Each structure stands twice: as C-alpha cells, then as structure tokens.
C-alpha cells in the first residue's frame, strides 16, 4: 500500500498519513519513555521486553484463532510483564548479575515463542502464517487507523503521567537512593516507569518489530542526553528526535521500497551520530570548538603564558608528569574540561599580570 511504484501518489494517500502519524507518535513516545530507561542504565530492558512478548503474541494468536490485534497485544503485554517479573525475581533472589538475568529472560522467552509460533504454523491454514513473522521485523505499512488510535492513547497516557509526576520521576531517574530517603514511593514510581515502557514496546511491536523497538527506546534518548543536562529539555529533544527519526525513516522506506523498521533505526542512528558530534551541550566537536575558542581568546602564543600554564597544570595534577614531556597549552586544552581550563587560564593570567607589575616596579 505504500509502494513507491513510479509516481508520488503515496504522498497524498490517506494510508500514508495514517502510517506516518502512527510511526511519528510512536517514535515520540518511545523517545520520552526511553529517556528514563537510558538514564537509569536499563537501556536493554526494552530489548528483553520486546523478545519476551513473542510467546504472548503466539498465545493471543492461538486463543483468538487468527490474527486479531486485541488478544495478541494482551498476550504480548502478559508475557512481557511476566519477563519483567522474572527479571525482578532473579535480581532479588539470586546472585546473578543483571546482564545475565536479561540474557536468560530474553533468550528463553524468545525460544519458547519460536517453538509456539512453529506449532501454530503447523496447525494454521496457510494464510494465517504471515501475522507472526511481522512481529519480528515489523510491518509498518500495515498500520491502520485503529492502531494509530491505540498508539496515540498510550502516548497520551505516558505524556500525562510524565507531566504529572515530573519531579518524582526526575529524582528516581538521577538518584534513586536520595528519592527513597526523602520518602518517595520508589517502588511504585519504578513500576509506573516500567509499565510505560512495557505499554510502549507492546503497541510498537507490530509496527516496527522486536529489534527496532529496542532501538527506538535507546537511540533518541541517548542522543537527547547529549543535548542538555536538564531533564525537561532532554525529554522534549528525545521525543522530537524519535518522531523525526521515525517519520523520516518511514518516508525513506516508502520511497525506496524498503522495510520501514530498519530505515527508522538507520535514520535514528544518523541523528545520533549528528548529536554525538554536534550536540550543543556535550557533542564531541562542540566541546572541541568551545575549547579552541577559549584558547584563541587567550593569547596562547605568548611563550611565557605557555610556561606558566604548564607549571600551574602540573601543580594541580602532579601525577600527569609521568607521561607528558612536551606539553604546551594546546594539549592542555584536551586534557582539561573547558571549565577547568578556563579557570586555570584565568589564574595564570592574573599571576602573570602581577609578575609584570612587580617587574615594572623594580
């Protein structure tokens, strides 16, 4: 239905706009919800959840006796949450490291799902088979108005919850111990965040598939984190990046006749790369550029300044003496953060001025 064929008809069709809208809302929601997961070091939980949903999808398919959206989503939610419960249980009751628990849940649930899907395929009539495959790789072009509504409702719920509980979520995301100490119900808040992630993953699965859903949770959030240190801005940027990545990916896929899930991930990865280099707050090139501007502002070619700067640096970091021989302030600017560099330079400049006046007096 989104086939490019050889005209641009698809740009004006109703279906295209439904698909684009659905994907964009999904991406925005995933970016917002994923921000909390990424900030708390739980990026791969979405991955485990998405894999754990497969047996549920099969269960729903089997119970409903065909590809019915409602039962399949419910089943996915059921086993996805079961997977999360198992994770929490393993964390509480065993000494396994978290990543091993994730690996176990992800692979065993997925294995059971594969077994069930094959069993269903053995019994189902030929036409019914296609429904399951699309849950792995996603079938973006198949988004209908009803799917769009479900996605929008979930997005609305998460936006409302995040808006209402912003302060609480912020505290839990950055300092869970402190949040507990000031009396916040961290377990409930944790549950709320996890449920939002689960809902988002489950409604997104049919559209973009297992692997791509994990990517949608991680990539916009990790990119947005480079843009700001303030949570509200990170959330906004993550949601916008998610929407932009999804919409542009879906458009690319329609134009080039490629599956949409992978193109969404690739455009997200492109945005991430841009952020990594150019993000205003922590981009690699931006921080370099800021440091360079600072060195330009100071008169760095003055050899006396260089010497004094080096001396001051080693006073502060004596352990660096071992591996640095020909150090000048051009390299210093790489070793120090911009703030530290500026502070050091300011102090050195004052020292030099003081020395000059002393010389002038004598």
């Amino acid at each position: 239905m989104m086939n490019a064929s050889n005209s641009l008809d698809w740009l004006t069709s109703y279906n295209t706009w439904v698909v684009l809208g659905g994907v964009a809302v999904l991406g925005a929601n995933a970016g917002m919800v994923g921000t909390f997961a990424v900030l708390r070091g739980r990026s791969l939980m979405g991955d485990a959840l998405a894999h754990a949903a497969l047996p549920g999808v099969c269960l729903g398919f089997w119970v409903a006796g065909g590809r019915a959206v409602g039962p399949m989503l419910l089943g996915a939610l059921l086993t996805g949450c079961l997977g999360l419960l198992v994770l929490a249980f393993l964390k509480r009751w065993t000494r396994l490291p978290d990543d091993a628990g994730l690996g176990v849940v992800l692979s065993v649930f997925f294995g059971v799902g594969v077994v069930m899907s094959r069993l269903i395929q053995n019994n189902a009539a030929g036409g019914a088979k296609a429904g399951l495959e699309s849950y792995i790789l996603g079938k973006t072009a198949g988004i209908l108005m009803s799917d769009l509504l479900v996605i929008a409702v979930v997005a609305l719920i998460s936006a409302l919850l995040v808006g209402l509980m912003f302060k609480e979520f912020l505290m839990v995301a950055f300092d869970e111990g402190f949040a507990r100490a000031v009396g916040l119900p961290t377990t409930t808040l944790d549950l709320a965040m996890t449920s939002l992630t689960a809902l988002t993953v489950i409604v997104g699965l049919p559209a973009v598939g297992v692997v791509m859903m994990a990517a949608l949770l991680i990539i916009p959030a990790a990119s947005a984190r480079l843009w700001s240190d303030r949570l509200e801005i990170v959330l906004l940027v993550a949601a916008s990046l998610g929407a932009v990545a999804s919409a542009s990916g879906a458009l690319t896929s329609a134009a080039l006749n490629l599956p949409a899930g992978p193109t969404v991930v690739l455009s997200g990865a492109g945005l991430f790369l841009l952020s990594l280099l150019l993000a205003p707050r922590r981009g690699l090139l931006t921080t370099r550029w800021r440091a360079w501007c600072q060195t330009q502002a100071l008169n760095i070619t003055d050899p006396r300044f260089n010497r004094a700067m080096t001396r001051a640096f080693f006073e502060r970091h004596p352990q660096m003496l071992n591996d640095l021989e020909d150090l000048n302030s051009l390299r210093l600017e790489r070793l120090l953060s911009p703030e530290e560099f500026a502070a050091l330079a300011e102090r050195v400049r004052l020292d030099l001025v003081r020395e000059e006046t002393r010389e002038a007096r004598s």
Partner: protein
Amino acid sequence: MTFGNATWSALAQGDGTNWWDIDPITVAWTLAVALTVNLSCAILGCFLVVRRMSLLGDAISHAVLPGLVIAFLLAGRIASGPMFVGATLAGLFTAWASRALASTGRVRDDASLGIVFTTMFALGVVLIHAYADNVDLDPGCVLYGSIELTSLERISLPWPGGGTWSVPRALFAPLLALCATLILVSRAWNELVWTSFDPGHAAAAGLNVERIHQAFLVVTAATTVASFEAVGSILVVAMLIVPAACARLLTSRLEMMIILACFVGAFSAVGGFVLAAALDTNMAGMTAGVAGGFFALAVVGSPSQGVVARVWRRVRLTARIADEDVLAWLYRADERGRIARVSELPDRATAGGSALRNALGRLIRQGQVRRGEGDALHLTQGGREAGEAQVRAHRLWESYLDRHFDLPLDHLHDPAEEAEHYLGPDLQRQILAELGSGSIDADPHGATIPLEPGLQPDRRSTVPQKFQSSAGESEPSSVELPDESNLPKATSSP
C-alpha cells in the same frame, strides 16, 4: 539457505510423521551439531557471565548480519569461508565500536551496545532488501536457525581406511569454534581467570589484559557466528548464557561451573532434539526452552543458592531465634525468683507472639522446658544452660557496647537483643578477654553476667555469613567466585 519452513515430518522416511522414523544417521549428525554448538557456547558463556558481558553474545549475533551480506556480495555466492570471516569481523566491529562509543564518556555502556547492534542489524536487513535480487539470505533463517536441516547438506571426506565419509557441512564451523574455545581456555586459563575477576591486579602484575580481552572477543565472535547458522541469531544467546547462569547458581568454583554448564548445555541439546522432533517444532527454540527449564530448576532448587534453600534457612533462623528468646525470658524470670506463666509470654518485635508460642511448644517437646501446675513453666537442666548462655551473650554485648560506644544506657538493650543470637562461645570468650575477665561481673544495668567457665557446645549452625568468621573455609587451591554484589565491575563494556 531458505530453510525457514522445513519441518521434522518432512525428514521422516516414507510417509511416517514420527520423529523416530527419521534415519538414525540424520539423528546422529543433528545431535552432533547441536552438542558441538552447545558445548563451545557453554564454555565461553561461563566467562561471559563472570565478566559481566552476557549481552555481548546477543549484540554480536544480531550485528553479524551486514558482515554476512557484504561478504556474500563480495564473493558473489554463498561461500562459507568469506562469509564466516565477514560475519566475525562484523561481530568484532560491534564489540569495538560500542566500547569506543562508551569510552567517549558521552553514552553509558548498555546504551552504546544497544545503539551499535540495532544499527548494524538494521543495516543488514536493509542490505538484504536492497540486493534482494542477488541475495537469497532468508531473515527468518537468520533469526531461527535451521539445525533440523544441517544433516541434509553433506560433504564427502576421504576415510583413512579407504572409502568416503559424508559429514554435514554445518558441523565444520562449530567444530572449529569448539577447538578454538578449548585451545584458548586450556592455554590461557590463568590469564582468563585473572583478568575476569581482577583486571586491575592482573594489569599491575604485568599481564596484557587488553590482548587477552581481544583474544577472548575473537573466539566469542567466531563461536557466535559458527553457531548461529544452526541455531539462529537470538537463540545463540540462550546457548551462551542460560547454561552458564544455571551453573553459576549451583557452584562458586569456575572449573565446576564450566563442567556443570557443559552438562546443562548437552542435556538441553538432547532434550531439545527429542521434544522438538516429537512435537514437530523448531529445535533451537526447544533447546532454549529446555535450558530455561533447567535454569528454573536451579533457581528454585539449588542447594546453596536456591529459593527453597534460602527460605528454609530463613525459617530455621526465625525458629532458633524464637527458641532462644523464650529460653532467655524463662531464665530471667527464674533469676528474679518469679514463676513464669504461659499467659505472660511476651509479644516481642523480633519474633511475633505466635512464633514464641510455637517455640514454647517445641522446647517442651524437646525437654528443655517443663510445665508445672497451672500454666507455670520451669526450665529443665538443659534449658537452663541454654537460657543462661543466651542471657550471658546479651549482657556481654551490652557491656561491650557500653565500653566502646558512646551510647546512653537505654540504647543498649535493643542492639543486644539482636546480637545475642549470633554470639557463639568463641565470640563470647573473645569479648570476655577484651573486657578483661574477672574485672567484669555485671552488665551496665547492674544485672549479674552469668559467667560459667564451661561454655555451651555450639549449636549455632545457621549463623548468617556476615557474622561467621571466615577462617578455615576457603580453599585457595581453586578459583572462588566472589559474591557478585561486591565484585568490582570487571570489564563492563565489551
């Protein structure tokens, strides 16, 4: 390689649909492939788990897809050699790139791994579709594997005694991977163990931690690639992690962990084969399911770590504490010359009233407490000694706290009420020596400490670890896995 829809019944001879109708040689070769894959994965998985790199297998197995496709496009056909190399290189690139990304300090380890492998996978899928006319790689086959069909495609090898021997082509790569794994583990055992548990110390001692890490990565990537043609990209993770995680729950020694993991892997392979053939379903998925079953058994029933054992230990501890509380209460009543009565049984915070009543019943059955007329209670000789030991521990601890901590007098009882249950005769003697025996005969509240020379035999077998002295328990000849919670994060990023 479009094997996605094959079923077991198709393999059965004639029109039989039962798996036992399958040609025994087919069964043998399928099992051989499955066992080889599972063994090499189980061995490497143990190191992945203790190095906290469990999800690297998942990442690598997803990320090899573009490597496969590019190698295929370069070679122009399905050529095992170039595709194996291409896939392994793609896997190594994933490990390297996610590490480089995390080392910029801009992205956390888990997020960087997630970004890199999903992007690589997406790239692979796009490449497959972009060159769909030239590539007959089936994403379904990549995802689920096709171990059922490995025995169909055979290569004839010259047999030493003359004649030929036809061996499944898919057996070679896992066999090579198993050999590489065995060589790595046997040649570099000490280095691997050292760098897994204490990379800082290993580096200080002059080991090239980085090189060992790279070697481990190469073998892991090669094994993942070799396995995934048979079991599919996601289920490789099950073969890698689940047996190792299962073994980790059963033992604390790395050698034993590897052996157990191999057994779990092998049994899962056989069980997966039998069940999959019986139900006519995907074997790799079934193997993962069986391994998951073993894991669940270990979680519940492991003798040292299992949920049952932990709950049982907790119940025993609660019962012992209740027993001791009742004995101490009776001893104190006795000391004051009062007769204790059942109706006066205290309602204590450490053990609820019903727990104390149960304890009383238990003590009467054991003959430590005797019922008098009415509801009066008396200690027997044995009970008196036990109660005395308890009160002694309590008062010694109060004296110790009073001596060494600046606590008000009314803050001494509650901590002592908890600590008394963990002070065995040895610790009591130590405290006594510390306080200066002979100089102390009353606790800070003025109550006499019942100092009898013959301390009771130790019946504190279920003392929690943190109160136990660890001397004489470690066996330094072997590798002891430290408790995960206070282990320094070894190689956090792959």
